[in-house]
């Protein structure tokens, strides 16, 4: 009987181990047991009294923080930080399910800007960083990103900003020259100061060279939408899409310029080939996307320059570092992330990886201002993006904003696919938005 009982226990152990493996998978890669143990090690209390603390951190690739984390651990021997990395979409799905399940979430989690609103409407899932000293560092970061990270009244702060993605316009100087357009960035900004100018230049380019002005109708819509101070919703979450002037303008420019777009989406496998061949002459991009051009079209080195976009800038990407409320060490976690995203560390990350800082004092820093890249021909690339970052305006977004974005992008795409007229596409979009929001 003893033997039987033993074998049963063994079996049970096996099952438990299997189940544990199963749940570990949801945490992405990483050493087994870390996420479970972190809560148990050490009673809550203080980091200052030298008690050792283990913090888990979930990130997606491209954060560029490995060296800084090592440095923090060297300076704070009582803190051990375990980083677990998963792909962008997996990372957010994992975080979502860990929060929903009520266990398994890390002490520090990265939340990309596209997910901020969805997490912000559930503040009970996260520690309010204002309780741990976030108020003291408010002034360090660009205001628009801080407001995105906070509740409308500013009482609740979801996370500390990492990098930001202020938008500018890269353009092919050789193609602009062939078309008789200016090539100097200041002249380009002056001549292409409005979207009407941009379309006019695009037609000139297309007529002279047969090259399109930009890649895809849905992309320019997003770019112009992000320039506004108001999008689909007012601050009470009422849908104002039919009244919003910025949305109307974005839609009209997109529809009216569809003869000068190549019909190639940025996510498609053809994008790189089109870029390398020079099928379109301008790319709207945040600094982190410069590297994509270098990867996709290495032979175009020296043919690019970067100028400010028509009318205004905008933001694409960037993240927050949050502390889920499941964490037992919120103070230690906050101490860590506030150090990690302090201006000095952001500067190091920028120097090593090019992630554009959200700490505004760095916009005057020599290292940032003098940042440049021979691939893009511009000596003051850093200063130009710093200026773009300061041109970004805060926009209110609702948790439904990304749903509406998808519907608008799809509707515009049906126009160039020949599946709908612009009027039909607009009506279809409104009907679908109405249906999805009313559920």
């Amino acid at each position, binding site marked *: 009987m003893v033997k039987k009982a033993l074998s049963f226990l063994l079996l049970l152990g096996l099952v438990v181990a299997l189940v544990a493996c*199963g749940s570990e998978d949801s945490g992405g890669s990483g050493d087994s047991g870390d996420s479970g143990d972190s809560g148990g090690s050490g009673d809550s209390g203080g980091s200052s009294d030298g008690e050792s603390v283990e913090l888990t951190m979930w990130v997606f690739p491209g954060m560029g923080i490995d060296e800084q984390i090592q440095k923090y651990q060297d300076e704070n021997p009582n803190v051990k930080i375990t980083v677990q990395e998963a792909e962008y979409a997996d990372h957010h799905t994992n975080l*979502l399910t860990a929060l929903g399940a009520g266990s398994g979430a890390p002490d520090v989690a990265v939340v990309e800007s596209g997910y901020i609103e969805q997490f912000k409407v*559930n503040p009970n899932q996260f520690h309010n960083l204002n309780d741990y000293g976030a108020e003291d560092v408010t002034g360090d970061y660009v205001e628009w990103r801080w407001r995105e990270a906070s509740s409308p009244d500013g009482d609740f702060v979801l996370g500390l900003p990492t990098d930001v993605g202020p938008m500018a316009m890269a353009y092919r100087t050789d193609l602009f020259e062939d078309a008789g357009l200016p090539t100097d960035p200041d002249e380009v900004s002056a001549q292409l100061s409005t979207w009407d100018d941009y379309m006019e230049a695009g037609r000139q380019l297309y007529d002279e060279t047969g090259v399109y002005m930009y890649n895809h109708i849905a992309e320019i819509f997003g770019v112009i939408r992000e320039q506004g101070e108001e999008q689909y919703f007012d601050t009470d979450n009422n849908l104002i899409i039919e009244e919003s002037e910025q949305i109307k303008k974005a839609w009209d420019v997109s529809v009216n310029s569809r003869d000068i777009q190549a019909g190639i989406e940025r996510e*498609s496998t*053809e994008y790189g080939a089109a870029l390398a061949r020079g099928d379109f002459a301008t790319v709207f991009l945040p600094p982190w996307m410069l590297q994509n051009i270098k990867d996709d079209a290495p032979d175009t080195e020296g043919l690019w320059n970067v100028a400010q976009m028509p009318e205004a800038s905008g933001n694409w990407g960037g993240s927050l570092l949050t502390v889920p409320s499941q964490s037992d060490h919120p103070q230690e976690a906050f101490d860590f992330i506030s150090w990690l995203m302090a201006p000095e560390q952001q500067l190091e990350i920028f120097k090593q990886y090019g992630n554009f800082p959200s700490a505004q004092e760095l916009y005057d820093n020599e290292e940032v201002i003098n940042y440049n890249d021979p691939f893009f021909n511009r000596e003051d690339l850093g200063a130009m993006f710093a200026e773009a970052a300061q041109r970004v305006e805060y926009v209110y977004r609702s*948790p439904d904003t990304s749903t509406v974005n998808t519907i608008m992008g799809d509707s*515009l795409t*049906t126009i160039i696919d020949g599946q709908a007229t612009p009027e039909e596409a607009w009506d279809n979009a409104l009907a679908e938005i109405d249906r*999805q929001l009313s559920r």
Partner: protein
Amino acid sequence: MAEQDVAKINHVKEKRKYRPKLHDSLTGYLFISPFFILFSIFGIYPLIFTAYLSLHKWNILGDKEFVGLSNYVSLFTNDPLFLKSVGNTFFIWVLSTIPQLILALILAFLLNQAFLKAKGIFRLAIFMPNITSVVAVAIIFSAMFGTNYGVINYVLSLFSIDPINWTGSTLGTQVAISAMVMWRWVGYNTIIYLAGLQGISKDLYEAATIDGANKRQQFLYITIPLMRPIILFTVILSTIGGMQVFAEPLLFGRGANNQGLTMTLYLYEEAFTRFAFGYASAIAWVLFLIIILFSLFNMFITGRIKGQ
């Protein structure tokens, strides 16, 4: 005395009957328990929890709000996208399964021929797509089905056919997704058919050859009738698989007009991009019922054919 004996005998009987049985059955239950424990955790519990969720409105992070059957009601009365996804799924299923099974049968027949050398290599080669990562398949096919730089449009251009907008037209997207499904599963079905073919006695073919039947006649009048049960088996499997096509449209793109939106992809988007977990659960249950319906239909047909 007699009573005592009887009691004793009974006791012994009980002992004999009862104790060894506990022993035996306990060991037996222990041996099968891993399946049942895992199945209850990963099979039954999610099934029941999904049913429970489908009666709620839930964004996974907040509180669940009970809404009764309204998710199901709006699924059938006010959701053109869901109906479209059902239609797409069936169309893609037909477009991929029928040519796939015909091709697999022909390939299996060829692989089974006596004159063919190096059979092992061919069999391995034909099975390779099935063990290739679906993500890799989808990325390669997306490149091949590119509108501007895709190799398929290039080949078509050699025959002076205008480039097809694969991602932007209804038929184009569905053909591309079906092609991926087909490419992955032809080999799998070929191997199953090959196993079936090898179960058919050679005598039948020899007799037919002596009687002057050619290869085509042998295929139509010997192979196909004897393969019927195996063909049915593959049809059932591809039905269940076809209802759940997911990774291909996710990676290829469902298209702006949702022409590649399948039922499982719609479920995924509701849950993980629109955070409507209650609604997604309702879709999951409807999908479950549709698959059960189809399995019953398949069983009915199988029974009829067996009865003949």
